[in-house]
């Protein structure tokens, strides 16, 4: 059924309608993860409505119905709790219009509007997710859209496969252009920022440590960050990815500050200038250069080998030789860092900080305090005292477990050190720092990640959430802050290898996950491959910013100047256009028509300029009659020309070919010149 009042040959066919619906569905499906899901039923109902109209079962809705629908849709969006001025609202409105448009796709141009909006929505999808899977899905959606665009132009139905093939070829032809644009187009900083999705959860390490927290984190196999070393990779047991320094202990929980502060305030308090760091640093040993790509965590805390001496990227130096992101990490972010782990830090520590590193709650854990004082008295030096404590961990019946018993909250340290003796890094680091402080040695808890998984395919180190770790730093005279990891006394495998090795006996590694790719050996291989692909995607595609572009262009062209780039881009464009031309057959030689036909066509062109157009179906004689009737002045020449041509074409053996051609040429120039 076609709608009256619209030209029939411009209306979208039934097959075209189904194509459009499929394309719309494929565009909207992934966005439903981020935007109201009910927009998809809206699309389905709209399309079903239109199809019923096409089959003649209902009437096309009038303007009142459409208006009411639009009103309901907008009201629904407002009721969905999306902020009025936000990207989510803008995208949702676009989706709503996109879905409703299915009711009104009657003519081809409506279909084209739908397809073009679809292309835009594929772009919108990348505001929400930039993973390689999203990119692959985007290509699929584009193929579907182009297939729909092809289908709505067809009057007769073609097979689905042939349409998809054609659209895939079209996209494939665009690929070189896309690559050139990707590599060469300037990367502008955004002119404005939109309040992006507010509902992002925070992941990763929190800025507090209550024994139990890190164990929860150990049950997550998500990626925290990945590292690429520019030179040799440091030993596994040296990979302490330092995050936050926890100075304050309230008897149960370790935190950065005494009072709970807003993260922004904390950040401001902790950030410092590089000169401050440099003053407090005695740079020693060799620098380690590496690139880190941090996954989205929703937080500002970054992890690096301490101390960082040089950094490139959106980050600041922190007061405790750590680094902090300028903005919360909401999408993968890359930093280029140089660290000098052998350096000495804070050899001369300010008093205030000194006091901070000795803070203890006024009471509680009496037995532990007493133990510390007793051992310190019998030790010859602080180093000796530290060794004797560490020896206790090693020789006493301490046990590394991810399933520690609950501790008495009033005297957690006592309970752990003297009774249960079962725990993981947070317990060991916390109790160690407590003993140090009780004996008067400045110490602090450091949390971050330890180790990581080396990916041979991608030559990078993947650090997962289950690599989260806590250790201690002790201030020693003339040596500054010294890293001490009491966990390594109890479970050396944790540091030498990884968490999985440390808890192998217990079997508690990722035990909360019913299905874990990491636990299964074969799947683990697949996971590593995927990680490697994703790493490359993040590093080379998503990470291709102004800095990387400049470096890449410099390597490619030697010297980077506007003229240089213009020449290269111009050449590439020309090559691409040539390839298109060849593939599309633009340069393929058309079989040339014989000279008499070309002369006749020129004759037709000349007459057309004089206002007489020949229809393709008109024979020379018929055209001649029409032309002479309208141009009596040319009667003789036109008749003669037609006769000559006609004889040459249809009675060729009666005449001499060349002679006739000459006659035609002569007549032609005569007709052209004559006014």
């Amino acid at each position, binding site marked *: 059924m076609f709608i009256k009042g619209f030209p029939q040959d411009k209306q979208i066919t039934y097959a075209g309608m189904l194509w459009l619906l499929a394309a719309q569905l494929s565009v909207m499906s992934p966005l439903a993860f981020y935007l109201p899901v009910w927009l998809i039923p809206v699309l389905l109902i709209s399309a079903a409505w239109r199809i019923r109209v096409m089959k003649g079962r209902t009437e096309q809705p009038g303007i009142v119905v459409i208006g009411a629908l639009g009103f309901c849709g907008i009201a629904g969006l407002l009721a969905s709790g999306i902020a009025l001025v936000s990207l989510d609202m803008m995208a949702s409105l676009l989706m709503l219009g996109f879905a409703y448009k299915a009711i009104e796709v009657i003519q081809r141009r409506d279909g084209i509007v739908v397809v073009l909006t679809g292309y835009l929505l594929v772009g919108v999808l990348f505001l929400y997710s930039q993973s390689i899977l999203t990119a692959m899905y985007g290509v699929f959606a584009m193929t579907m859209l182009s297939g729909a665009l092809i289908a709505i132009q067809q009057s007769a139905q073609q097979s689905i496969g042939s349409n998809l093939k054609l659209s895939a070829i079209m996209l494939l032809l665009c690929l070189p252009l896309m690559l050139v644009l990707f590599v060469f187009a300037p990367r502008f900083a955004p002119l404005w920022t939109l309040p992006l999705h507010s509902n992002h959860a925070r992941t990763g390490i929190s800025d507090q440590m209550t024994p139990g927290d890190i164990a929860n984190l150990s049950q997550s196999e998500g990626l925290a960050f990945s590292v690429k070393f520019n030179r040799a990779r440091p030993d596994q047991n040296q990979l302490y990815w330092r995050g936050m320094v926890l100075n304050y202990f309230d008897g149960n929980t370790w935190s950065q500050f005494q009072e709970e502060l807003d993260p922004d305030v904390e950040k401001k308090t902790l950030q410092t200038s590089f000169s401050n760091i440099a003053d407090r640093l005695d740079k020693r040993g060799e620098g380690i250069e590496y690139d880190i790509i941090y996954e989205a965590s929703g937080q500002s805390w970054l992890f690096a080998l301490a101390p960082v001496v040089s950094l490139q990227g959106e980050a600041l130096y922190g007061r405790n030789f750590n680094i902090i992101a300028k903005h919360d990490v909401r999408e993968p972010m890359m930093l280029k860092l140089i660290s000098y782990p052998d350096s000495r830090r804070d050899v001369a520590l300010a008093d205030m900080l000194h006091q901070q590193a000795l803070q203890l709650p006024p009471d509680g854990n009496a037995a532990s305090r007493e133990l510390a004082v007793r051992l310190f008295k019998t030790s010859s030096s602080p180093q000796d005292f530290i060794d004797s404590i560490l020896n206790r961990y090693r020789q006493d019946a301490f046990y590394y477990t991810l399933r520690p018993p609950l501790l008495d909250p009033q005297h957690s340290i006592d309970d752990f050190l003297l009774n249960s003796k079962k725990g993981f890094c947070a317990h060991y680091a916390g109790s160690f720092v407590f003993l140090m402080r009780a004996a008067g040695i400045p110490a602090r808890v450091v949390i971050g990640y330890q180790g990581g998984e080396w990916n041979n395919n991608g030559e990078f180190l993947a650090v997962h959430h289950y690599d989260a770790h806590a250790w201690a730093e002790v201030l020693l005279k003339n040596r500054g802050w010294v890293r001490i990891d009491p966990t390594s006394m109890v479970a050396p495998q944790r540091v030498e290898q990884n968490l999985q090795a440390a808890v192998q006996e217990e079997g508690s590694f990722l035990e909360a996950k019913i299905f874990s790719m990491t636990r299964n050996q074969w799947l683990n291989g697949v996971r590593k491959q995927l990680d490697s692909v994703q790493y490359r995607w993040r590093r080379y595609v998503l990470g291709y910013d102004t800095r990387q572009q400049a470096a890449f262009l410099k390597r490619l062209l030697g010297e980077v100047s506007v003229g240089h780039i213009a020449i290269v881009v111009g050449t590439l464009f020309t090559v691409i256009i040539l390839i298109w031309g060849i593939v599309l057959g633009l340069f393929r030689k058309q079989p040339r028509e*014989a000279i008499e036909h070309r002369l006749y066509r020129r004759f037709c062109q000349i007459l057309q300029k004089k206002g007489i157009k020949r*229809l393709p179906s008109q024979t020379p004689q018929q055209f001649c009659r029409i032309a002479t009737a309208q141009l009596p002045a040319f009667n003789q020449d036109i008749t003669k020309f037609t006769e000559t041509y006609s004889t040459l074409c*249809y009675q060729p053996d009666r005449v001499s070919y060349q002679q006739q051609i000459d006659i035609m040429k002569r007549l032609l120039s005569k007709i052209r010149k004559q006014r």
Partner: protein
Amino acid sequence: MLNTVNQLNTALFKDIDACLNALYRVILGKEQQVQLALTAILADGHLLIEDLPGMGKTTLAYALSRVLGLNYKRVQFTSDLLPADLIGVSVYDPRTAAFSFHRGPVFSSIFLADELNRATPKAQSALLEAMEEGQVSIDGETHALPDPFFVIATQNPQTQYGTFPLPESQLDRFMFRIALGYPEPVVEREILKGNQGRAKLADIQQVLSRDSLLEIQQLVPQVKVSETLLDYVQRLIARTREDDLCDLGLSPRGALALIKGAQCWALLQGRMHALPEDIQAVFVAVAGHRLIGKQETRGEQLARHILHEVDVIGGSH
């Protein structure tokens, strides 16, 4: 030599003109259709006339047989018609104590199959061999049909009650299909006055002798068809075979019929060479019943559309 041929031709052209004029007197105002009908016969092809009842189909067929002075038999096709009713039957003769073959109506030079599509496919198929081979086989014996042998069939449009569609294979055996259409008002007035139609049929005299007819039939292939014209024909055929337009394009047999028809048409116009006009004149009659369009487009419409679209000019020759 050339002269004698020309003289001979001139005589034949005169005969043809006389034929046409005789026919025009009976079938008023339908010059185009009459010419097409005569063209089909002269080109040794079979003719299918499709139209509503009462449009003069039978009159045309009968007039043709009279003008050509050929032996003529007519069979009204009905749904209970059997092949034996057409071909004949072997009958036991008690005097000679043997079977003897009694020839059916198909043994005639012009066989008029009236309302062909009212018969069942079985009866229709009895004509297949006769039309293509000029012979019939019965009881394992083959009997030759007279030469010339033409089938002129009339059929009612398929939308009418009690019709069976003709299979494509049978349709392809008809060189032309033509439709007569309603007469012009002036002509209709003449018919109403009674100056027209069957009453005049009896007046028709034989115009063409059997020898002349055979001579003309031999002359048809000699009509010159140039390479340029063949280019045009091939463009037309190629267009019928493009899948966006037709489900069933023109077969090589159809293409041959197109060329032969154009040659014969040229002859009717008194020319010994064919022009694009000749192709255009017979194209719809040749292609209309052979093409099957997408979305139930009628073959004639499709043929006209193609004719309108394809450029007459051009080609590499």
